């Protein structure tokens, strides 16, 4: 493998990794606060991509406007899902909310099949993302730079919200101890709703960029990236935002580099993440940066 291809692969890994990381952040935030694996998150990812497609083809919006609108709509949808399917189950056993989230996931996926049909759709890509630029002998698609940079910007904005705002303080308080947060006057339900909104917005952004990179829309397109992003979150230590980012990028590298160095394994591509998951859980069940939850008697 020559240097140019190697750099290409590194850039591809970063692109894929940052897409995983954006989705993983949503999983990790919701899990950190509610101890809930939000299976519906992968459908939020998928819907974000479809909304942009709609905005462009049906309403003829310019590209950036469609993207921002789609992110907002998807974020509201994420909040709605929480209100309808999870909030009534806050006091129920945790497994109930988990089953509810599986139900919502299948519901959204099948609604998408009904409305958008199961056939894959082509995605329109703006030309400024497609014309390769030459950087010191390496041909780079602007897309492979655009995706990690936009992801980075979104993550920095998130870090600001979580560590510098009152809402972020609320999130961190709830993730430590939800009952005490109630007592201390944290508006718990509002903070949880905002968490779902932010997580869904990031997933939508990721879904949109995913659709640009692999220009095809399908109602089931969220499932595999969703699982992998969840694994990234577990790998990094669920509940930790930094962990989710590290996990996502690592997973991106493993996936691209394994196929690059061992092309024979390409067919097993979708299994790498799961093998990694099982290995990580066996060795360090709490992930890289996770804290061990105490057994409560």
């Amino acid at each position, binding site marked *: 493998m020559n240097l140019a291809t190697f750099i290409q692969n590194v850039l591809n890994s970063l692109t894929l990794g940052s897409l995983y990381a954006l989705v993983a952040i949503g999983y990790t935030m919701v899990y950190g606060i509610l101890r809930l694996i939000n299976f519906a998150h992968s459908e939020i990812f998928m819907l974000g991509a479809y909304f942009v497609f709609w905005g462009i083809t049906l309403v003829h919006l310019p590209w950036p406007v469609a993207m921002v609108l789609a992110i907002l709509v998807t974020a509201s949808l994420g909040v709605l899902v929480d209100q309808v399917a999870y909030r009534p189950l806050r006091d129920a056993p945790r497994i109930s909310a988990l089953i509810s989230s599986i*139900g919502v996931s*299948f*519901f959204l996926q099948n609604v998408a099949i009904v409305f958008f049909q199961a056939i894959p759709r082509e995605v329109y890509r703006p030309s400024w993302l497609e014309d390769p630029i030459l950087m010191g002998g390496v041909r780079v698609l602007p897309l492979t730079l655009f995706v990690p940079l936009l992801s980075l910007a979104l993550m920095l904005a998130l870090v600001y919200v979580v560590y510098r705002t009152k809402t972020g303080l609320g999130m961190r308080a709830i993730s430590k101890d939800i009952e005490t947060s109630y007592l201390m006057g944290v508006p718990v339900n509002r903070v949880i709703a905002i968490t779902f909104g932010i997580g869904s917005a990031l997933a939508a952004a990721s879904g949109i960029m995913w659709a640009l990179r692999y220009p095809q829309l399908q109602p089931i397109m969220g499932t595999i990236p969703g699982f992998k992003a969840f694994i990234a979150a*577990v790998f990094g230590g669920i509940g930790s935002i930094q962990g989710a980012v590290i996990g996502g990028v690592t997973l991106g590298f493993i996936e691209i580099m394994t196929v690059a160095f061992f092309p024979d394994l390409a*067919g097993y591509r979708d299994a790498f993440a*799961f093998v990694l998951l*099982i290995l990580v859980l066996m060795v360090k069940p709490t992930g890289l940066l996770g804290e061990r939850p105490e057994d409560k008697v």
Partner: protein
Amino acid sequence: MMRGRTIPLNCLAIAVLGALLYLADTYCDGYQIQILNLIAINIILALSLNLIYGFTGLFSLGHAGFMAIGAYVCSILIMTPDQKDMLFLLQPAYDWVAAAHAPFFVAVLAGGAVAALFGALVGIPLLRLGDDYLGIATLGFAEIIRVVANNIPRLTNGALGFKGIPAFANLWWNYGWALLTLYVLVRLLQSNTGNVLKAIRDNEIAAKAMGVDVFRYKLVSFTVGSFFAGVGGALLASLLTTIDPKMFLFTLTFNVLMIVVAGGLGSMTGSVLAGIGITVLLEWLRIVENPVDFLGFSLPGIPGMRMVVFSLALIVIILFRREGLMGTRELSWRSVAGFFTREKA
């Protein structure tokens, strides 16, 4: 009611079931018989998942994986060597795969046994994990099985899968296995092991403090559950006569989970009733996908609508009737007698 009287009553019930099956076999059309067969298989799958999840509290999402193992093992064994010669077009099968051949009963048993073996192998490292982690890890296992099935063409014929699997699975086989599953699981749950499993489900830490070897009992439950999941997959393969890796997606696990939750986690009776109800409902829901004339309006059929209604039903159940149809209650001769004599059972 004394225990001695339940045995004749059970025999009577089996005789009635046998008579009903005979009538169904004679008078029902192929489509109805197919649904009856699916009911039996769904009951087997729901019972096995209920043992793992409802009675032991192990949140497992790997059922599709164990079913896939059972289905592939059984299919390889019941297809004749000539058939396999014709089937493996892209790459020839391994010699031992091509040569393997066994009668149907042995093949189903082998499917279950291999699934149980994998259950134990996966269980040993994974059963130490907490509930959500176990769920996602078993889900990962099922996905790995699917990806592997796609990539070993000399064993599984790759993405093409198997076609023309001999259709041995008739009403008698399927209901026979369903009865056997029910019998084994009920006996297991009524034994001391069953009490320990429920204790682990209700409070693992307390069970551990009582000196229970929690891990060993979890492993037993998981392995037995995997066995019957494999059996269910084996019967399904022979019933549908065609399998491929795409069939064993997460959706399959979801359907079984739906039956277990709707019937009641921790109720064998619930799994049986919901197995019947949901299988019929899923077929009946095909109506919404076909065009219908309703009071003079003609409604166009909407493909995919069936699963929308189905998943909505799951959400509604979990929101409004979390304990499912039966909760943890069971139907027994004793409770039936109590109902009629108005005694408290």
